[in-house]
Every structure is written in C-alpha cells, then in structure tokens.
C-alpha cells in the first residue's frame, strides 16, 4: 500500500530524511517512532503530498505515484496532520460537507456517510457545534472523521494523540484500533507506549534514517536480548555470595548486582527463559527474604533510547549503583550484627547503637541528642539488632567504607 524507496528530503542544509526506504502492506498498522526532529512528520507530509521530496527512488501510496499522480494519492488517502486543521468558523457538519465536496462526493452519499462517520468516531451529537468551540479531544475525533469521510484505503495520522489527556488518548487509541481492521494505517508518535499499544509493527526513525523496523517484541529480543528477572532480596550472605549463588543456577547466563535499597539488594538475572521459579526456590533454601521477583521485558522506550543514544540497554534498565557497597568489587557489608568480625556494621538503616563515639559525637543541638532510643526490630532477619533512631538513617548508599575493614572508631567517625 505504501512503498518508499531511497527517500531524501532536505531543508536547505538540513537533511531531514536521509535515504529512507520501507514498505507497508495492505491492512497493516505501522507506527512511526522517533524523537522530535527525526523526520517523521516530513516523511508523512511527503507521502500525503504536502511537501515535495528532494530525491526519491520510489514513492507509491495506494497504487499512485506520489510525485506523478499526486491527485490520485490525495483522493485515496485520509490524512490528519498533527495540528488537526479544521476551520473554526464552520460547524462540524459543514466541515464534513466541505471535505465531501472536495472529494467529489454527491449529496446523497454525503447524507448517508456523514452521520455514519460521526457516529463511528463518537461525535454524532456534535454535528451542529462550531468546530472552534470543540475541546482538543473532540477536535481530534472530528479531524479523524474528516479524514475518514471519503472512506480512504490508507489512513495517515501524524501524532494522533498529541495534546490529549490520558483518557482521550485511550479513546483515540481504541478508535484507531477499530479503524485498523479494514485499512492501512500509518501513524506517528514520539510516545512509545502509544505506538506499542496500537501498532503491531514499528519503524523507528532517527535523524532521518530508519534505525529499526519490526514488531516491538521482536525488536526487543533482537536488540536488547530477551527479558530479565529482577530480584530484590535480603539475606544473610554478602551481595557477592548471593550473586554467585544465583549465577550457579542452571540456565543463568549473567547476574548483575544492582542497587542496594535499604537492607535489600537487587540483582538482574539474565538467562534462558523465565528463571523466576528457580530463583524463588533458591531464595527459599537460603532463607532470603524476597521482596521482588519479577519478569522484566525491555520496554520499547529503553530500546528506543538505546538506539537513539547508542547507550547500552543494561545501563538504561538499571542505573549503576553509586555507593561502593553496591559495587561487586567492594567488600560487601553483612546485614545482621556480629556476622563479620572485622567490618563494623554499617549497612544502611542498620546500625549498632553501642558505637564508641555514637550519639555523643553529634554536635550540640542535634535533635535526638538527649538520649538514644533503642528499639528492637521485628524483622526476623534482623536477629534482634537494635536501631538507633537518633541517627540519620541513610536509605541510599552507605558512607564510604573501604574494602579492608578499619578500626571500629574510625569508620564510625567518618559517619558522624
């Protein structure tokens, strides 16, 4: 239905579309994806006959050559530009009739078709309203109705959901879904979730070039590998030990040690298929407290960002933890007290109140200076360790703790 080969478009020195080629078959719904300025709108405008191509090997829409038979193309497509151009001084029905006349529809056909189309987009009760007084969402629907009126084979929608609230966006999405049954639809968006939910196939553009083309799931698999299992766990062992334990499971290819949030350590496990059950069983045998065990697929957004910025998917999926405690190389801290003899217990959120320079080292006037409260944690994995509430508890990375243990006092001082 749409064939584009070696399409190039320049705006002066700016290269907007760079040797773009793709094909869209009959009945396909294809999403054009790309950041602002990627060339989506330019390509769409060229296909709709609004802009001329600087150079094109082949440009065919609905069987008509865009460059030679522009009228034929215009007659057989429904095009809705991003700005939803409607004449504000006309009523909805008048706008529809104008479109009908432009498409040489006769009076009888219009009388039947206009209410039909208005009903299809759900604005049948707004026929007499002035277009200028419609809300953004309604205007979008009327714009769609105008594009649909001549019953085009190909529907080209430029950012059909921009400027809409989430509910309206959902409605327009459903509408496009229902339209897609019997015609070819090309829509553009820079909102990825949008395209993912509407179009079974996406073409990702960046700087005027096609960087990816395919089904979102396939793209995800080929670009970022499959999904991974996100694990967040609290256990007695060190992060390193836990990581190697998980890594020893059959089918696991890699374990990335992620951030440490409070007392919980997160991991990202990649391997063959879904490893959740195995990891769950491991956690059970090791008496780890599981906080999260989920199957994560890379979203189109991550892929997109990866494609566009060239950064690794792992980086994007899970930001590298900043604290040394989270890095696999540094000596991990032991959760419960007394497990590790030389290293002081510095795990964030879990501190011993008996530190030699404990509360007294705080400057005068610090809240909670009067006397440290000792509470007993109800967390069974805490093994009865107490927590000093008079001290600020860091939730993020623990303070600088060198790999080799320092004397107790020294490390306590660095903290207070």
């Amino acid at each position, binding site marked *: 239905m749409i064939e584009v080969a070696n399409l190039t478009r320049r705006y002066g020195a700016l290269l907007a579309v760079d040797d773009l080629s793709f094909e869209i078959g009959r009945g396909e719904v294809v999403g054009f994806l790309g950041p602002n300025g990627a060339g989506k709108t330019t390509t769409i405008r060229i296909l709709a006959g609004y802009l001329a191509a600087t150079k094109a090997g082949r440009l065919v829409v609905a069987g008509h050559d865009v460059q030679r038979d522009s009228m034929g193309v215009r007659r057989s497509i429904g095009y809705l530009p991003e700005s939803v151009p409607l004449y504000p001084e*006309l009523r909805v029905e008048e706008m529809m009739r104008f479109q009908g006349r*432009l498409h*040489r529809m006769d009076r009888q056909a219009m009388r039947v078709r206009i209410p039909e189309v208005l009903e299809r987009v759900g604005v049948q009760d707004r026929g007499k309203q002035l277009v200028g007084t419609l809300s953004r969402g309604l205007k979008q629907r009327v714009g769609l109705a105008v594009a649909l009126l001549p019953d085009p084979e190909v529907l080209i929608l430029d950012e059909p959901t921009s400027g809409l609230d989430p509910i309206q966006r959902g409605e327009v999405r459903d509408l496009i879904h229902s339209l897609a049954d019997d015609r070819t639809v090309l829509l553009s968006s820079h909102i990825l979730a949008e395209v993912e939910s509407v179009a079974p196939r996406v073409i990702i553009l960046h700087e005027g070039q096609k960087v990816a083309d395919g089904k979102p799931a396939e793209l995800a698999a080929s670009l970022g590998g499959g999904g991974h299992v996100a694990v967040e766990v609290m256990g007695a062992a060190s992060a390193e030990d836990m990581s190697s334990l998980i890594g020893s499971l059959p089918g696991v290819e890699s374990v990335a040690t992620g951030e440490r949030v409070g007392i919980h350590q997160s991991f990202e496990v990649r391997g063959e298929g879904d490893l959740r059950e195995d990891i769950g069983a491991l956690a059970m045998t090791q008496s780890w407290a599981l906080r999260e065990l989920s199957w994560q697929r890379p979203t189109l957004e991550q892929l997109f960002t990866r494609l566009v910025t060239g950064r690794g998917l792992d980086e994007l999926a899970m930001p590298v933890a900043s604290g040394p405690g989270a890095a696999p190389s540094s000596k991990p801290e032991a959760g419960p007290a007394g497990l590790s003899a030389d290293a002081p217990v510095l795990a964030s959120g879990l501190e011993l109140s008996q530190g030699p320079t404990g509360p007294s080292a705080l400057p005068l006037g610090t809240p909670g200076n009067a006397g440290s409260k000792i509470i007993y944690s109800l967390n069974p994995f805490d093994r009865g360790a107490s927590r000093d509430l008079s001290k600020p508890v860091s939730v993020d990375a623990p303070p600088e703790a060198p790999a080799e243990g320092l004397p107790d006092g020294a490390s306590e001082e660095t903290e207070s």
Partner: protein
Amino acid sequence: MIGTFVVARRELSGLFMAPFTWIVLLVVLFINGLLFSSFLYQTQGNVTATLSESMTGPSFWLWMIFLPALLSMRLVAEESRSGTLEYLLTAPVSDAAVVLGKFLAATGFLALLWSSSLIYAVTLDYAGGPPDWPAVIGTWFGTILVSGLFVSIGMLASTSTSTPLLAAFLSMVSCLMWIAIPFLAANIMAYLVPLLTSTAAEQAVLAERMGSVVASMDALRHFSRSFQMGVLDTAEIVFFLTWISFFLFLTARSIEARRWRG
C-alpha cells in the same frame, strides 16, 4: 474547476460567518452612503456626477487600498498560520483551484460591496433622476476588475508570509505603489532621463518611451479611460485580466514553493 467553486464557496461562507466581515460591510456602506448623499447635495442633484464621484472618487481608491489587503491577508497567511493550508493542499484539488477559488471569493465579496452603488442608481432612477446607465454599469464592472487586481496583489503578499498583519501591510503598500506609479515614475524619470541621455532629442524620445510604459501600468488611467465612460473596452479588460492572471500565477507558484521550502 469544481474544486475552485468548492473552495470559493467555503471561503465565502467562512467570510460571512466572521464578525469582521459584517463590521466592514456596515462601516463601508455607512460611510459610502454618507458620502453619496453629500455628493448629491454638492452637485445639486446631478445624478450621473454623484454616482461617478461616489463610485470612482478618492474614497473608492482609499477603500481599495485597505479592503483587498484586509480580505486577502486571511486567505493564505492565516490559513498557513492555523495549519488549515496543509489540509487544503493535501485535499484532492490543485493549487491553481485553491488560488482561484480564494481569489473568486474575495473578489466576489468586494463586487457585492460595490454593488451598493447599483442600488443607489436604481433608487435614483425610481425617484425620477435617471442615471447614465452605461456609465454606471461600466464603472461597476471596472471596480470589480480593480478589486480583482488588488486582491491578486494581496494574495501574493499573503503567500509570502505567515503573519497576516504583515501580509496586509505588504499588500497595502503594494496597492498604494500601484496607484502611485504615475506620480512616482514622473519623479524618477526626471532624474533618470538626463543621466541616460546626452541630447535633447534623445531625452524627448526616452521620456516618451518610458512614459508609455508607465502609462500602460497606470490602473487609474485605464479605469477612467473606458469603464467610467460606460465603454467596455476589450483592451482594458485584457489589461486587468492579464495583470490578475500574472499575480495569481505568482501566487500559485509561491504556494508551490512552500512544498519545496517546507
């Protein structure tokens, strides 16, 4: 061709749905009416002189500077700004049909405005003062051609910018220049001719040649020479139609250039 009429029809209906149009109609007709009655008193009931004065006098040319500019500024510049031009230029109508349709709508509106003089003439005829009908009809026809010329200039100005106000200003200046060509040309020639020539004979020839070029562009003169007399001279009609076609052609080209400029 159908496309032209579809576009013209929408332009006209759009025009008559805008309050701007009605305000313009009210003000122009009111002032024209006042002027007409004052002319009638001044000429002591000379019907033909009064009609001629009210249809072609300085007031007419003053309106001709403002009205076509105000009408044509919205034709392209405003549509370009609101984005509806993209809709129109991707609809199955040619650029020429769009340009022609818009031109016909704006000129038609002005024709309607100037036809108020016909009502005055009919009224006077009925009241017992028969006007010189050929002159009245001819003048009316001429005003439509002049309106068309200025609308086409305004449309060209309108395609060159997407700021309607700037388009209107450009159009006003252009129309003013067009009217003022003979006066401006006389000034320029007074400087230019002695520079280019050495002998008095040469000077005379060059001045005459340049004068004839200037005269051929002088809309005022073309207008008063035939239409005002009640003569529909084909040469004069061709003069106006040629210039109108020229500007409409440039307008269509300018719109097409947008497809390349983006």
